[in-house]
């Protein structure tokens, strides 16, 4: 069981961010963790991120995450 000092969030990864990671996972972070902390924990380079959603809404990396929220990260796709 997560302690009070942790928050459980759902992380959804899109496209190439799934490679070597996962598509969707429930993960525990310390209370007060920001989106940027999750990005660093996942080993994703901030410059490769195109879009960040929390519960379907656009969000900035310095936003703190609350228990039960769903974070979605989308990479930059530029080929054609």
């Amino acid at each position, binding site marked *: 069981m997560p302690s009070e000092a942790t928050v459980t969030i759902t992380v959804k990864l899109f*496209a190439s961010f799934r490679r070597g990671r996962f598509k969707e996972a429930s993960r525990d972070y310390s209370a007060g963790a920001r989106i940027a902390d999750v990005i660093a924990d996942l080993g994703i380079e901030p410059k490769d991120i195109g879009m960040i959603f929390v519960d379907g809404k656009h969000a900035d990396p310095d936003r703190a995450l609350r228990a039960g929220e769903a974070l979605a990260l989308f990479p*930059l796709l530029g080929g054609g």
Partner: protein
Amino acid sequence: MIDADRAFLLAQGLDGLLSWAAQVRVAETLGLSLGEVEEAALVEGLLPSRYTRNCATFSIADQLRFRRARVGVVGCGGIGGYVVEGLARVGVGAIVAVDPDSFEESNLNRQLLCTIAALGTAKVDAAASRVAAINPAVTIVARRERLTRENGAQLLEGCAAVVDALDSIGARKELRAVCDDLATPMIHGAIAGWYGQICDAFPGDAALDRLYGRGDGPGEQTRLGNPAFTPMAAAAFQIAEVCKIIAGQGKPLRGRALMLDMSEGDVEVVAFADEAR
């Protein structure tokens, strides 16, 4: 069209269809272009036989809308080659193809219009040859140049929709600005490896700002490359978006983006909660 010409045209039809041979005959006899004959036939409710299999999906009125439409295709490589092909087969009357590049060997793995014989030739010239081979009634405007904020409006003026078949994020941002200036919907598609994304960006929509709003990296395609199947898939969705917008059918991918993961066989549509920018 005068009554005698109309009567001649109608007499060439059979069971509501106009064969290609008859279309050529009408054009030669009446001194019209093949495109003019196609349009006149559709106005008279006569369907060129080549569109027989379109007609359970699109009405003759829709076919006439395609005939009268001009659509821009910016980039004639992986996605763009298929888009040009698809629009010509659908029966879009005029296609403006824009690309400064020539074919090279690394294009052979995926680009429809790239053949060994075409290596070193301009991509837009290959697009023009292909359209002429499929349907000479379709006008193709081949522009061998890079689209910029400066020349964009002149290149794409009058287009009902513009297909983004570019290969860099910076070029897409420029195209978005041009389409906003022209108040033309931009049909966005981008790929990398097994992955793709498709959405419609209508003037003022935030879609492209969202998708490319964050990082300043070059994009995953620089690491993952582009295999044969991802541009095909993205192009198919983009062609369908063009048809939907012109025919006023279906539900455009506006305010939403389709995220394609062909490695997982997975398609997910994500909505932009705050669509206006």
